[in-house]
Each structure stands twice: as structure tokens, then as C-alpha cells.
């Protein structure tokens, strides 16, 4: 994984990946190892995987026009009680996930498209989703709470 800072502690994981779909699988392995070690409940594990998949895929697809140039995306995960707080920072086009429109669920089902579905899914699974534009970078802060009763942590 290019740009990996290698900074891994028991409760914190910091990774940096390139804007390349091949990086997603490698990131997923590192993140799930981290989640396993911290014995987080299945819903937290699912939510973290879903958020990373949907947000990083969006950044890869729509964040950049200069396809030939590599960009670095920083991912920070921190165990908080029985849940996870995440921060994702990229230097792509400004995209405020918080204000992205909900998919139209009123269209007749046979005419329905699934645009915007990924963000709709993570909004429903995560507890917080906060967007900031800082120094020409998108900074997305997310969190998902766990149920201490089903977790090994805390």
C-alpha cells in the first residue's frame, strides 16, 4: 500500500492510500485486522467497511480529473469506547457528503435508478457524518457507536 505511514497502535490506525481501486482491497485487509484485534461488534465492523467502500469509491470516481496523477488519501481510525471514529482526508474536488441529496425512493420501482445510494446507506448506518473543507481538502469525520454488550473492547 503506497504511502502507508506504518503507524499502527492498538486503538489507532493511520493509513494513506493512492487513488487506485487496487488499493481498496489492501486497505480493507489492514482495517479488518485492526477491527478484529479490537473485538468490535459486527455492526461496527460492517459500518466501517461500508463507509470506507462507499466514500473511497466516490473519491476515486469523482474526486479527480487528472487521472494520470496519483493522489494520497489519508484514513484515520480510532476506537472510542465500543465504537469507531474515522477521518478521511482527500485533495479532490470539493464534495460535501453531508448535503448530498437523498436518492428518490418515490419513483416507480421499475424506473428507479440507484444513484446516491451509497451515501444514503452510510447515513443510515453511521451515527455522525461531518464534512469540512480545510486548506483545499475534503475532511470527513464519521463515527459509529457500538454496543458494549456484544464487543470484546471495554
Amino acid at each position, binding site marked *: 500500500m503506497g504511502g502507508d505511514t506504518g503507524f499502527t497502535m492498538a486503538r489507532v490506525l493511520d493509513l494513506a492510500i493512492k487513488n487506485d*481501486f487496487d488499493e*481498496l482491497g489492501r486497505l480493507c485487509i489492514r482495517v479488518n485486522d485492526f477491527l478484529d484485534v479490537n473485538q468490535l461488534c459486527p455492526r461496527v465492523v*460492517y459500518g466501517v467497511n*461500508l463507509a470506507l*467502500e*462507499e466514500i473511497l*469509491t466516490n473519491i476515486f470516481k469523482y474526486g479527480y480529473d487528472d487521472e494520470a496523477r496519483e493522489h494520497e488519501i489519508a484514513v484515520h481510525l480510532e476506537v472510542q469506547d465500543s465504537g469507531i471514529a474515522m477521518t478521511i482526508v482527500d485533495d479532490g474536488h470539493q464534495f460535501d457528503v453531508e448535503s448530498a441529496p437523498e436518492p428518490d425512493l418515490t419513483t416507480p420501482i*421499475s424506473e428507479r435508478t*440507484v444513484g446516491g445510494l451509497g451515501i444514503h446507506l452510510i447515513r443510515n448506518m453511521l451515527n455522525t457524518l461531518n464534512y469540512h473543507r480545510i486548506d483545499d481538502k475534503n475532511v470527513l469525520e464519521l463515527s459509529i457507536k457500538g454496543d458494549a454488550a456484544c464487543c470484546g473492547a471495554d
Partner: protein
Amino acid sequence: MELTVVQSDDAFTHLALAGRLDVAGEQTVGTAFAAHSGAGKALIVDLSQVSFLASLGIRMLFQGAKALFAEGSKMVLLKPQPLVEEILQTAGLTELMPITHDEKEARSIAMG
């Protein structure tokens, strides 16, 4: 990600998916799945071994269901794991992709 044909006859095809239906999973099974859903026969899709489903995987399933609907056929999703089922319910597409945990009922819906 794996796609297996459990049973296939003139009336319906019963598929089983296994693994993570994410970007990489969709790339692995997407073409084969589209071929089955484009065959015009009712489709039962066993999701019991799918541990993770994201929007790209839902898009794959939904495009198949729409193709079948256009042909007057149906797709039924069988035995999704709880978190996968929660995602499917949140997506709001179960009208076209009904979910059941009973195989007989799946056949009944698919053939109906």
C-alpha cells in the same frame, strides 16, 4: 466472491453468492450474474454466504431484477445475513427484490 448455480431448469435458476459483494466482488461475478438475470427465467439468489454488501453489489442485483421485471419474471433474495438484510431494507428496493428466509416461499414468489 463466488457465484454457484445450485439448480437450473426451464422455470427458474437458483444461484448462490458467497463472499464480499463489494467493488472487487462485483467485478468478479458481475458478468456471470448479468448473464443469468438476462436469461428471462425467474431467479432465486441465495445470499446466506454473502458477508458484506455495498451499493455496487446492490446495483448489480437491482439491474438484474429490473431486467427480469421487464421480461415478466422475478428475482427473489434468499436468506441474507442480518446486516446484509438491513442494508437491503435501507436501500428501499425490496418491492422489486423481495427477501425471504424460506426456500419454498422463494420458489413460490419466483414462480408466481
